[in-house]
C-alpha cells in the first residue's frame, strides 16, 4: 500500500467527527451577503501578480499560508480497496493462442497493440516451450502485468505541501462526479479533511449531484451561487476554503466536455491557473469510461495537452468492458492509470493494480 502524508491532528479533533455523522455535511453555501465566505470572483486572468496577491491577502489567506508552510505531517495508510470481481476474464473457454489477437481486440486493446502482444506471446511461448492452457495463461498474465507496471501509479499525496488539490476532468458522463464522491469518502475514512468544489456550473443539477456525494462523504462543498457561474471562480474559492479550514485536500469537479471543443478545453486551463494562484495542483485526474473504445486515446491526448493530466481513472470496469485501451494510454501517452471504478456505490473503486488486472483478464471462468 502507498504511504501518504497528511496533517497531524489532535485526538480530540478526530473524536469529534463521529458526532457529526448523522447530521448533514457542512455545506458552504457560497451566497452573496451571507456571513459565510463571500463569493469573490477569482482574480481575473489579466491581473498582475501583485493584484493577485492583494486579492489573496484580502480574503485572509496570508496567515493561513504561514500555517500550512510547516504543518505537522503524519504518514498514513489509507483503507485498502480492491478490484474485487471487477475484471472479467478474456477467455470463455480454453486459451487459444492463435485467437489471442482477436481476443485482445475485443478487449479494446486496439489492433496494433493486440497484434504486438499476440506476437510477443507466441514468440515467448515458443522460446519457453510453453503449450498447456495454464502455462499460457500465466505467461500472458506475466507479460501484461510486467508491461503495465510503473512506479508512478500512486496518487501524489505525499509531498507534504498542503492542501493537495485534485482536479477531475473528462468527457461527459465518464464518471467524474461519482469518482469524486468515492475518493472523498475513502479519504475521509482515512481521517483526512476534504473540501469538494462544484466547478461543473453548466450541467443541470450537477452541483446537487456533487452535494449528494459530499453528504455521503461527510465533507463540505463549495458551490457556485448560480448555474453558469465562472467555474474558475468556484475552483479558486474551493482552494481558498481548503486553506482557510486547514483541510488536507481539495477535490474539484469540472463539467464534462468533449475533447474537440476548443473553448471548453481552454476553460480547463483557466481553472488550472485559478487554482495555482493559491496552491500547487497535485493531481489532474482524467476520468475515462472503460466502455469507450479507441476514442479514449483522443480524449487522453487532448486533455493531457490542455490540462496537464497526471493520472487516469478508468471507470465502469464492473461491466463487460475490459478497458484494454489503458494499455496504450500508459504505453503510448505515458499516462499512469491510477484508479479504477467498479460500480456506482461509494466503495466501488480501487487503485489500479497491473497484477490484479492481468490476473482477472486471464482467469479461468
Amino acid at each position, binding site marked *: 500500500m502507498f504511504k501518504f502524508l497528511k496533517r497531524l491532528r489532535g485526538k480530540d479533533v478526530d473524536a469529534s467527527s463521529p458526532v457529526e455523522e448523522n447530521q448533514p455535511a457542512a455545506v458552504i453555501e457560497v451566497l452573496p451577503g451571507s456571513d459565510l465566505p463571500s463569493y469573490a470572483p477569482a482574480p481575473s486572468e489579466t491581473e498582475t501578480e501583485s493584484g493577485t496577491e492583494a486579492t489573496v491577502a484580502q480574503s485572509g489567506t496570508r496567515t493561513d499560508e504561514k500555517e500550512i508552510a510547516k504543518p505537522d505531517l503524519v504518514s498514513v495508510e489509507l483503507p485498502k480497496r480492491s478490484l474485487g470481481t471487477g475484471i472479467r476474464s478474456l477467455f470463455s473457454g480454453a486459451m487459444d493462442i492463435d485467437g489471442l489477437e482477436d481476443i485482445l481486440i475485443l478487449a479494446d486493446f486496439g489492433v496494433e497493440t493486440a497484434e504486438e502482444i499476440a506476437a510477443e506471446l507466441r514468440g515467448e511461448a515458443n522460446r519457453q516451450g510453453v503449450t498447456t492452457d495454464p502455462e499460457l495463461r500465466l505467461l500472458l498474465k506475466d507479460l501484461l502485468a510486467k508491461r503495465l507496471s510503473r512506479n508512478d501509479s500512486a496518487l501524489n499525496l505525499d509531498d507534504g505541501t498542503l492542501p493537495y488539490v485534485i482536479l477531475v476532468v473528462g468527457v*461527459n*458522463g465518464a464518471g467524474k*462526479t461519482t469518482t469524486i464522491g468515492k475518493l472523498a469518502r475513502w479519504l475521509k475514512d482515512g481521517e483526512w479533511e476534504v473540501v469538494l468544489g462544484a466547478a461543473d456550473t453548466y450541467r443541470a443539477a450537477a452541483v446537487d449531484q456533487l452535494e*449528494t456525494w459530499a453528504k455521503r462523504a461527510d465533507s463540505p462543498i463549495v458551490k457556485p451561487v448560480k448555474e453558469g457561474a465562472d467555474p474558475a471562480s468556484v475552483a479558486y474559492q474551493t482552494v481558498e476554503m481548503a486553506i482557510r479550514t486547514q483541510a488536507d485536500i481539495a477535490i474539484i469537479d469540472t463539467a464534462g466536455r*468533449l475533447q474537440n471543443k476548443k473553448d471548453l478545453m481552454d476553460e480547463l486551463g483557466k481553472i488550472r491557473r485559478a487554482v495555482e494562484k493559491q496552491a500547487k495542483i497535485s493531481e489532474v485526474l482524467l476520468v475515462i469510461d472503460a466502455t469507450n473504445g*479507441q476514442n479514449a486515446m483522443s480524449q487522453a491526448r487532448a486533455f493531457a495537452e490542455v490540462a496537464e493530466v497526471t493520472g487516469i481513472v478508468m471507470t*465502469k470496469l464492473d461491466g463487460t468492458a475490459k478497458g484494454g*485501451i489503458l494499455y496504450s494510454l500508459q504505453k503510448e501517452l505515458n499516462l499512469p492509470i491510477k484508479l479504477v471504478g467498479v460500480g456506482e456505490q461509494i466503495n466501488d473503486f480501487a487503485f489500479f493494480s497491473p497484477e490484479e488486472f492481468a490476473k482477472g483478464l486471464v482467469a479461468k471462468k
Partner: protein
Amino acid sequence: MFGNLSDRLSDTFKNLRGKGRLSASDIDATLRDIRRALLEADVALEVVKSFIAAIRERALGDEVSKALNPAQQVVQIVNDELTKILGRENKRIQFAKSPPTVIMLAGLQGSGKTTLAGKLAKWLKEQNQTPILVAADLQRPNAVTQLQILGEKVGVPVFAPESGNGVGDPITVAKDAIAHAKKAQFSVVIVDTAGRLGIDEEMMQQAIGIRDAVSPDEILFVVDSMLGQDAVNVAKAFKDGVGVTGVVLTKLDGDSRGGAALSVANITGAPILFSSTGEDLDSFEPFYPERMASRILDMGDVVSLIEQAQKTFDEEESKKLADKIANDEFTLQDFLEQMQQLRKMGNMKSLLGMLPGAGKMKQQLEDFDESEIARTEAIIFSMTPLERNGPKVLNGSRRMRIAKGSGTSVTEVNQLVNRFEQAAKVMKTMSKGGMPNIPGTNPVTMGGAVGGGYIGGKKSTTKKKGSKSGNPAKRAAENQGLGFSQPQESKPGSAFGLRN
C-alpha cells in the same frame, strides 16, 4: 496509429493503378485495410468480420471483375454495405394510434439519457405534441433534479413523485405516470430510466418491469457514440433484456469515428432514429445514415481518392486509347470496355451524392440508360474475338448469329456496328487533330457522359480561354468541324448516339 483509411487505401490503390481487374489477393489487401480502419473506428469485431465477408463475396463476384477499375468499386461496395446496415433513409418515431405515445429510454450509465429526454421533449413540443417527462431514474444522485431542471427549461411538465437518490420504486412511478398522462391528456410520455449495465440482471429486470408497466411504443436504446468493442455485449443485453425498437446515438459532436453505430444497428436490427450532437437542448437531429457511413470510413476522403485513382487511370487509358485510334486499332472490345466504364460511373451515383457540387453530374448519371449498355454488352459478348477485333468481317450470317445469341435483332446489331464505326472515325479525326493529352480526356468516357470532367468534376483545368467548348474532346471535334450527334453536351452516352 490513427492513420485514416484514405491514407492506407491510397497505397493499395497505387498498386492497383491501371489494373484492368482485381485479383483475389488485391481484394484481400484492400479488405485488410478496410478491416483495420473499421476496427480503429470501434466497429465491433464480429460485425467487422461479417461485414468484410459480405464485401469479399460481392467484390469477387462478376460485378467487379467486369468493371474497368474495380478497386474503386470495392470502396463503393463498402459504402453500399455500410448504408445497408445503417439504414437507407432516416426513420421516424412510431406514434401510437391512440395517445399517449409512450417512449421509454434505456441505456448504459452516462450515455446521455436524461439530456436526451429533455431534447426529445423540446422537439416534440415544437411538433405541437404535448409531452410529459417521467423521472424514473431513482438511482443516480439527483437525476430527478436534473430532469426537473430540463423540463423547466423546455417548458414541459415533469412527473416526479419520488425524489430519487435510491428512494422510491421506478416501476410504480412509471405506472402512475401513464395513468396521470392519460387523465391529463398528454400526447407523449417520455420515461427516463436509470443507467444500467447489460450484465446487471437485477437492474435489467427492473427495466423490464418499467417496460411492462408502461407498454412503450418505442424503447429507445441510447448509445454513446464513443462506445468500443463492448457495444456488442451491451446491445445484445438490451435487445434480449428490455428490448430495443430504436437507437439514438449521443455525443456525435465529438471526434469519435462512431463505429458503435454500425455495431449496434447490426446487433439490434433496430433503426437509428436520432443523433444527439451537443449539450444544449437544440442539438438534436434525425440520423443521417450516409453521413455516418462516411464518418466511419472517412468516406469523404475516400471519394477524393477514387477521383485520384480515376484520374491516373484516365490518363493512362486515354493515352493507350489514343495510340490505338491513331493506329486504327480501336476495336469493338475497346468500345465495350469504354462502355462499361461509363456504366461504372453510373454506379458511382451513391458516392457522388455525398460530394458537394456533384448534384448536377449525379443528374446526368441518373439519365444514363443502363439497359442500353446491357444490350450493347450482350451484342459484343456474342461476337467471336475475331469479330470484336475487326468488325469488317461481320457479314449477314454473322450478324444474324450475333443477334440470336444476344437476344437482339439484326437491326440492333447493325445499329451498334454503325455507331461503332462512326465513333471510331470521329475519334480518329480527333486524334489526328492532336487530342490534348490531358487527364480526364478519355474520348469515349467523356463523350458527354460526364460532361467533360470526371468524378468530382473539380478538375476542369482543361478549360482554355477562347476555346469553343470547355470540353476538350468536344472542342477538338468542333475544330475538326465535326459535331457530336447530340447538341446538348451533357447528354449521357451521346458520343455513341447510344440513345438516339
